[in-house]
């Protein structure tokens, strides 16, 4: 157990980063950071980001990327609120189907349309955002079912309800990725698509499934946010997609594909959540927070690329050595 933990910490720098942030903010903000209420707040806040990070982790594992999650999130929230007069469960179902549908389209664009994932999802991001703006007419939509807010804003004892829901989803995704054929196939496809194809894996179906899961998870996030706010506005989800990419990569996923885990995504989201919370407590101005987020995104993507480059060099040296 101990060696396994040690190995995990060594492989995931994110643990060190998280520890550092927690200690740093505990020292600088006094008791503001490390008290029960604040931890409750952080848990609630990150529970809306976790599904997105899971979505990105799944797609990144399969060697893709999904920029449309932010738009899907906001449209799902709008549908959840807009269709609520017809029944909360009906509206949630429609929102989730919408998310999965966008995922399906993304998957088809990437596999059948042979469009590079980030270009295809950039396109669908714009289209879905346009649909959302058309549907809402750029107006906020208020909820009409007070009981529905329980899922996003309620608490079970000291624990926020949404974090419980999201942790259950984490377990499900973990099982899919580690113990089901679909998950194993996704790692294989992301690691080496050609080898996966030659090994008889149905690349088309598995890739499409990855995007469908991604769209579905984004919609879940939108439903939870709508429940939390009991309304939907056009502003939600604007930059959550990029933030989720950063969280997934911090958690060990890579733009080169084939890597990533649920636990990593959880740690990535928690790290970024602690950072945002700490910056708020320290009173860092929003403008500077936006800049700090941007620098983190750039750093994360750059470090990911550098480590991929080092790996390539190492492999090249090895194969060169073997030949001699």
């Amino acid at each position, binding site marked *: 157990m101990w060696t396994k933990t040690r190995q995990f910490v060594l492989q995931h720098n994110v643990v060190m980063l998280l520890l550092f942030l927690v200690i740093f903010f505990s020292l600088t903000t006094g008791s503001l950071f490390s008290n029960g209420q604040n931890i409750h707040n952080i848990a609630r806040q990150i529970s809306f980001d976790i599904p997105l990070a899971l979505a990105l982790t799944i797609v990144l594992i399969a060697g893709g990327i999904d920029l449309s999650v932010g738009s899907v999130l906001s449209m799902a929230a709008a549908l959840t609120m807009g269709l609520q007069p017809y029944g909360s469960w009906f509206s949630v179902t429609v929102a989730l189907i919408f998310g999965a549908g966008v995922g399906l389209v993304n998957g088809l664009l990437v596999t059948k349309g042979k469009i590079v994932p980030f270009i295809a999802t950039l396109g669908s991001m714009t289209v879905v955002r*346009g649909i959302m703006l058309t549907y809402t007419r750029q107006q906020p939509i208020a909820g009409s079912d007070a009981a529905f807010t329980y899922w996003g804003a309620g608490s079970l004892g000291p624990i926020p309800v949404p974090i419980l829901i999201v942790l259950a989803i984490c377990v499900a995704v973990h099982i899919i990725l580690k113990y089901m054929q679909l998950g194993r196939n996704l790692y294989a496809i992301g690691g080496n698509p050609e080898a996966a194809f030659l090994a008889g894996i149905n690349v088309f179906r598995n890739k499409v499934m990855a995007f469908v899961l991604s769209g579905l998870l984004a919609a879940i996030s939108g439903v939870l946010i709508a429940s939390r706010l009991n309304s939907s506005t056009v502003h939600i989800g604007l930059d959550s997609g990029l933030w989720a990419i950063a969280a997934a990569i911090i958690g060990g996923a890579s733009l080169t594909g084939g890597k990533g885990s649920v636990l990593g995504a959880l740690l990535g989201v928690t790290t970024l959540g602690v950072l945002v919370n700490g910056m708020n407590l320290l009173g860092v101005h929003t403008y*500077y927070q936006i800049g700090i987020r941007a620098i983190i*995104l750039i750093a994360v993507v750059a470090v990911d690329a550098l480590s991929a480059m080092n790996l390539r060099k190492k492999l090249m040296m090895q194969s060169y050595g073997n030949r001699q």
Partner: protein
Amino acid sequence: MPQDGLGQPEFEKRGVAAALIHFMVTNPALIIPAVLMAAGAILSPVFLTTQNLLNILWTVSVLGIVAMGQTILLITGNFDMSVAYVVGLAGITAVIAQLYGAGLVASIVLGLLAGALIGLLNGAIIVLTKANAFLITLGTSILVYSINLILTQSKTWNVSVDSFLLLGRGKLFDTVYYSVIIFLLLGIVLQFMLRQTTFGRSLYIIGSNQRAGALSGIRIDRIKLATYVFCGTTAALAGLIMTARTGSTVANAGVGMDFDSLIAAVLGGTSLFGGRGGTLRTIVGVLILGVLNNLLVLLNIPYEAQQIAKGLVFLAVVWMDGLLQKR
């Protein structure tokens, strides 16, 4: 027969009709504006008036200048998603410099310099780490946005040097706006550079086969850096013109131009995968986008639906681009 980059004419022995059909298939970009013009003339009585057409040109010229830099980058197989907020940054830099007493020339130079610096930052990160250009420039895009917010404090700032306004409102011989002339001239000069100079040709080689380019002695890193700096500078120029036009600037001036400049370039027939395209084509692409927007406005189609249309057009063109690549 226009052939971009290193493509070889493959049908020299075919007849004129076959050549014409081939031309139309490989240049859908040239047919679309013709169809759009016809549709416009039928759908709206004011569409084909000189005033409206000049208006379209004037409206698109700012985006057109941004798209010029974007096209050069696309040819090398790179992107710049930070152009939108660089447009804002340049205007803000110039206006704030004027408040601190800078004259016409100094404020313009400072504005352009701000854009070039962001381009340098983009290029340096991408060249040094070989990271995904798309995500890195999205990152710098947000970074520049935060700089814009910090500089403007979310307020509107007015131009204080009157001669600066001429850049956006002045007309040559009282007929054509300077910005239109800059846009068209830039397209023509860059096209000449792309086709006739060693530097221009090497951009196509980097875009189509980077390894071959490196082996044949092209200094890839240096050229990539230069194209990013250039793209940042053109975005800044567009930002200065935009600021001069409205006489004021805000933090998110130019928002949406990242995506629009991509669409414009791709609509013109520049490939997202590098190695194919040209700035003259981008002029056509920008015009298509402008005519499309103008038509949607004249037909009273709401802004929200325009977003959907733009996204669908983008996906369709990229998909066709992929089909052309495979042939």
